[in-house]
């Protein structure tokens, strides 16, 4: 017997060859999974925004037309919509600190990685020291750690970024504030080596894409080849 990571109800997983021979990893129940909305259908090929046609969306065009930001982030892949249920799940996972809920996303994240970014070096978006102390864990780091345990395992995680500046929470800012904030919160971690490598950034949510592009900017300057990202949610 296993229990749903979110609602605590019993789940009786289907018996399959995998479940017979491998210990089952904790997961979400089918009802909770069903109320999370996977992104399907037409999306913007650059940022995964759901839309009617599969062309690059206006926001991404604006990014690419700016000399400062163009060409930094090749592609972002988001798995879920930010619906009410997801808001609750994230609130409990990230803000209340119920870390194990993250394991519910193990399988989906790994399969996206294997399908689209196989062989890329995972780089989690770091938290500032203050925020890490407050939260006790880093959700992006957790997502990255899943890739290490995938079969076949990804190249080892590079902690290529350091968040030296403690900003206000992104989620407390308006869209304009986020896009026009000039502060570069990240620094390059000199102990890591990313030269000539393909990078996949990991974060929980893509809202305006500012954070990811700022991170990509640093990595590009230190010789990264191609930079993509996997985010759990397209906000």
């Amino acid at each position, binding site marked *: 017997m296993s*229990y749903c990571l979110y609602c*605590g109800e019993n789940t009786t997983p289907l018996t399959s060859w995998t479940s017979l021979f491998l210990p089952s990893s904790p997961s979400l129940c089918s009802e909770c999974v069903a109320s999370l909305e996977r992104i399907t259908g037409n999306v913007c090929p650059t940022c995964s925004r759901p839309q009617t046609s599969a062309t690059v969306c206006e926001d991404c065009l604006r990014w690419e037309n700016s000399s400062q930001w163009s060409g930094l982030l090749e592609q972002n892949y988001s798995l879920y919509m930010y619906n009410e249920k997801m808001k609750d799940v994230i609130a*409990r996972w990230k803000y*209340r*600190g*119920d*870390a*194990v809920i993250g394991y519910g996303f193990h399988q989906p994240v790994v399969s996206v990685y294997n399908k689209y970014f196989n062989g890329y070096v995972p780089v989690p978006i770091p938290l500032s020291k203050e925020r*890490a*102390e407050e*939260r*006790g*864990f*880093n959700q992006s780091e*957790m997502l990255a750690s899943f890739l290490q345990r995938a079969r076949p395992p990804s190249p080892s995680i590079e902690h290529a970024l350091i968040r030296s500046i403690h900003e206000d929470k992104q989620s407390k800012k308006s869209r304009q504030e986020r896009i026009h904030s000039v502060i570069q919160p990240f620094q390059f971690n000199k102990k890591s080596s990313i030269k000539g490598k393909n990078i996949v950034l990991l974060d929980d949510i893509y809202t305006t894409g500012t954070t990811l592009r700022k991170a990509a900017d640093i990595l590009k300057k230190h010789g990264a080849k191609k930079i993509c990202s996997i985010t759990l949610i397209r906000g």
Partner: protein
Amino acid sequence: MNYCHVRLKSDVRCLPEALVENDADILAGPDVISRLPALPTPSHVIPSVSIPFYDDVQATLFGKELLYEEMEYSWGILKPFLETGLITLKSGLLPYKKGFCCQRCHTTSKKSFGCFDCFRCHKKCVYCRHCIMMGRISTCSVLLRWNGPAPKYHYNDILLKWDGTFSNGQQKAASKIIETILEQADILVWAVCGAGKTEILFSGLEQALRIGQRVLITTPRTDVVLELLPRLRKVLPTTSIAGLYGDSEEKHNPAQLIIATTHQTMRFTSTFDTVIIDEVDAFPYTADHSLTQAVTKAKKQQAATIHLTATPTPLLKKRVNANRLPCVRIPQRYHGFPLPVPRFQWIGSWQTRIENRSLPASCNKWSQEHIEQNIPAFLFVPSVAVLEKVTDLLKEQWPAVEGVHSGDQERLQKVNQFRKGSIPLLVTTTILERGVTIPGVDVAVLGAESAIFTESALVQIAGRAGRSKEQPGADVVYFHFGKTNGMVAAKRHITTMNRESNQKG
């Protein structure tokens, strides 16, 4: 953050590493708090010198155990409190048998604990998922406890502003309650739905507050807290009262009278002289062992406990029958009329009918009659899934019909609309079985044989009907597909109470 045991003069104190002086006499640590041995808690520490922020810290922490993260004070400010023993530290989680025991919610069940790589202690850290909504408590978190004196309450001028009258049953129960409070004993007040349970508490509350007692009224349901709060503020205008529930903003108010959901009592520790548990048999209080423990932890060793309900659990009844729990019964409603007795109506396999998108004929007729004659009606159903289907079917015929369940964001609005009459018939799950009073309402249960409709649920549901003096009679019907023991017991419960009230009256 790591912690140390340090000898200060004649006492051993537990301090965070950051506060330990270089030349201190360290007896244990620095280590994660859960690995340090427990220290005895000093009692009745009186501060000898004045400490900055004394009153504020006392108000926040008195009678509680809080996480450091819940305090608004830095370790620097807390230092003199820790050194004098006014505040002591203890581990949030402790090893228990082969697992852990949460020191806040007392959960020990294995599935309630999670494990993660903790940035604070840089180790694998175990945390309690059961009470995560109150802030994460892990093997490296500390709980702070207040050992100093209580804040001063102004209880000399406690005033009871209530001039209602009691029925005979209420009078008897009220004086029993006063007795119990003075003797610090236990009692079960078994009062039928609509007996006026809240009023009988008033004189007991006044008495307790006047002699300086700290009182807790707790109930499993937030709705009940929200209903009690304004009523008690009105009748006890000079008392300091705080209401605690999920979104409450009074969490740091050290009031003399606390009205809280049973979940919120988890933060308290040995502070109440009188505890009143309203709707003691309601979900989830009886289903969740940690809540019972939380209430026990919140009261002092010597304290009065008053259990209040219309439908005591078998366990409570057993204690009463074995003479281990005194009991006072109020079999009569406040207005003196008998409880409406439910009738049974067989409707066959209603589930199949609903699957085929039609309602059982007699149930549909009942709904129709009520809507056409403008009689407000509750239709109780066993589950959210059934609720949605039945609401849809009724809405096809009468679009004004609505359904509510526990996850419904508009629950309060819908109940208010129902009260005002703009919703003629409200389909509901057991969420509305208690605490709602709608004058002149009739009640039906669809699928009364379902396991969720226990004796107590059915008695409570029947208790929604006929509560006003003007319309004491009402129709209560259980639509079923086979009589169950629960249904029969519920009917017997109601007729017994009526008979008893006749004999007494």
